[in-house]
């Protein structure tokens, strides 16, 4: 009985995802059409990629609030470069470098100066957004056609962003489950002090996850830029919250040490996007979107706390 409940809770994200598909599928035939499903995956790509990086950070019991700002700065710089006639690959490279650079700044202050991650990344969020506004002179920028092709190109009928999303998810999953680094991320997240005692190079692990998160944010920016073809002052705004929500919705604990990218974060990101997509298709009042989305996120977090309770109840049962 308890085991069944535990099982169900472990799979809560998947169950929730299935419920959303069934619900909207029954409300509108269009929702389950292959083209719309592919559309959902493509739309979820940017958030999903950023959320994979966020999952690494959350697993260490940290948080990275700067991902949206990283996206903005990277997009702004790339936009300026493209408009100045720089070649596409160079602009893309610059975006990734910016992601890594901001990640490195976060990592430096968190592991060397020992400021709490929340404060550090909140600061880089504001600094990043300010920097982005300064670069763009608070004006929207339309990018050349070549960038839009990046978002709409298809391979085997699947859009490029979805391929990128899939790749990031699989690489993230492999790193977390099949490399020493990945397993040590879980150890550090459970108890950093104990990890250090066990001989794990805790600071290096912590620094790495912020670099990974920064890089993923930059890749997410590439995808969004390819899909929108423009940089507005709101580019990437509040992406940090959707990314955290996707990871948590997928079962990653905010207290560290528990969670996964596959299926967790993948399902989380798809779930949020499916919800939004479904609401659009059934013509729901746009003002309802945030309310319903946050209700689902609340539900997921509540389930997560239930899961923890079942888990600790099991742990007490030792003789």
């Amino acid at each position, binding site marked *: 009985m308890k085991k069944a409940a535990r099982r169900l809770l472990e799979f809560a994200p998947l169950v929730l995802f299935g419920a959303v598909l069934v619900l909207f599928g029954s409300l509108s035939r269009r929702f389950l059409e292959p083209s719309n499903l592919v559309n959902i995956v493509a739309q979820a790509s940017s958030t999903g990629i950023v959320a994979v990086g966020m999952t690494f950070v959350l697993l260490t019991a940290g948080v990275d609030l700067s991902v949206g700002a990283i996206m903005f700065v990277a997009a702004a710089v790339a936009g300026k470069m493209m408009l100045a006639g720089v070649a596409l690959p160079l602009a893309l490279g610059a975006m990734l470098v910016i992601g890594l650079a901001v990640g490195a700044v976060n990592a430096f202050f968190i592991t060397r100066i020992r400021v709490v991650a929340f404060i550090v990344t909140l600061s880089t969020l504001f600094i990043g957004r300010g920097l982005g506004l300064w670069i763009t002179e608070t004006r929207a920028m339309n990018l050349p056609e070549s960038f839009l092709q990046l978002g709409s190109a298809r391979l085997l009928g699947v859009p490029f962003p979805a391929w990128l999303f899939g790749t990031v998810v699989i690489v993230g999953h*492999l790193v977390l489950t*099949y*490399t*020493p*680094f990945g*397993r*040590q991320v*879980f*150890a550090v*997240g*459970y*108890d950093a002090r*104990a*990890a250090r*005692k*066990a*001989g*794990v190079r805790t600071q290096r692990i912590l620094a790495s996850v912020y670099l990974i998160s920064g890089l993923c944010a930059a890749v997410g920016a590439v995808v969004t830029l390819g899909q929108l073809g423009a940089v507005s002052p709101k580019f990437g705004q509040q992406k940090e919250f959707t990314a955290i929500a996707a990871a948590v919705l997928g079962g990653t604990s905010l207290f560290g*040490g*528990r969670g996964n990218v596959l299926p967790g974060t993948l399902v989380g990101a798809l779930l949020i996007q499916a919800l939004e997509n479904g609401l659009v298709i059934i013509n729901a009042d746009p003002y309802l979107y945030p309310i319903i989305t946050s209700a689902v996120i609340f539900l997921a977090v509540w389930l997560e706390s239930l899961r923890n309770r079942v*888990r600790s109840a*099991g*742990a007490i049962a*030792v*003789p």
Partner: protein
Amino acid sequence: MSEHWLQFDGIAKAFHGVKVLKAVSFGVAAGSMVGLVGENGAGKSTLMNILGGNLQPDAGRIRFAGRDYLPRDPQDAAAHRIAFIHQELNLFPNLSIAENIFLTRFPRFSTTPFIQRSEVDRRATELLREVGLEIPVRRLVETLSAGERQLVEIAKALSIDARLIIFDEPTTSLTERETARLFELIARLRARGLAIIYISHTLRDVFRQCDQIVVLRDGQVLGSGPTNTFTTERLVSLMVGRPMSQLFPERAATARFQNATASRDPAGALLAVRGLSRPGLLENISFICRQGEVLGLAGLMGAGRSELARVLFGLDRGAQGEVWFDGNLLQDASPRERIRRGMAFLTENRHSEGLCLDAAVADNLSLAGLAEYGRTGLRWLPRGPLQDAITRIRGEVNIDPRVADQQPVRTLSGGNQQKVVLGKWLLRRPRLLILDEPTRGIDVGAKYEIYRLIHRLADNGTGIFVISSEMEELIGLCDRILVMRNGKLVDDLPRSEFDRERVLRAAIGNPEEASS
């Protein structure tokens, strides 16, 4: 060559100007088992943390197997094949057994960053077999019992092919059977030539298992030599620094409870329990506890002692039967309500349930009394009276005067931590104090003080209900002992009939029953 296999030579270490170790020197012979004893704060853990690479000494040197040895970090100690098994096990419950063992040394597919899982599993299974644990290595550690976790920790030590294993209080969370298994395993390891340094407050185990004893007090070696050159009396007096003819204080006021029939008379009882049952855990339990009585509860691990305490305090609902307190029937009263009526409960897990480890001593002390002191006006805390109360309580429970009010509880020794928990409850002047393993992991000197405190409270009319796994403690401390087995009360002895063997027999039962 007169040099020992492992030799400490003038090791000194100070924290914030307080000298914790002052020129400690002693040697360990290859393949021997050394008992390292001393009160909390004597410097045992600091010394072992230096040996294990967690701390650097200020002065002195260590020679190990003929070479100078000074580990920079735990990894370095592991490279020298020295393993340290901490009291609080250093395992990650969210990872599997195999992952815990190989966390920093995963075998990989050559030249790739990927873990070779088949190899990890194979080697982990082998190590588990060596420590006598036959369970799948991919199981998460959070599903294991305390004893099994300890074995995983030992398997981890074997994975670095340890030559020396340091055990810090390894038996505090183990059942009797698990403890026996641990000692069997240690004997097997020693047969293979491993040396052991064994830190423990359980002197009986030290006497039985170790062939050499080193006594530390205030950061100095006060005595060392083969085990047979020590007696318990000598060891205790070396540890606490004063002769202690008795480990337990005299119990003067016990005469009132000598008469067994009188003590069973429910009229005027402080606590009366009638027919208390909880399916699978407690079965038809009836007893009383009078004002000023120290009532002990003996039994094996899993007999239902802690469960009984939790039901009495209202932490677990759904029990049938009656609990009368002070002449009132407590029907489903919440713990909060029971506290208000004068009950207090010290759990067996003082770290997770009894203390806010990172909060200051003063804050912890005032926690249970806040409501009382906040009852004026806008419920703001009157700082003055509260501070006075804290100072008074500190004196009453005799917390080390060197400890500052604002010091985090985490930094205190086990004995002082337990005094903080006691003090917290005393601030409310409880009428019934339920103590679950009140002296677990506490050194001899602090134990004595806690016993004295318990007696003083009882003399002032507080009823004490104390659960303990240490038979000597119950016999030395109590006016009456109840014995539980498989959820039932099976014996009730007044002090005049105290008998170690009788209590044990009652707790174990007849062999067929015990094995079922």
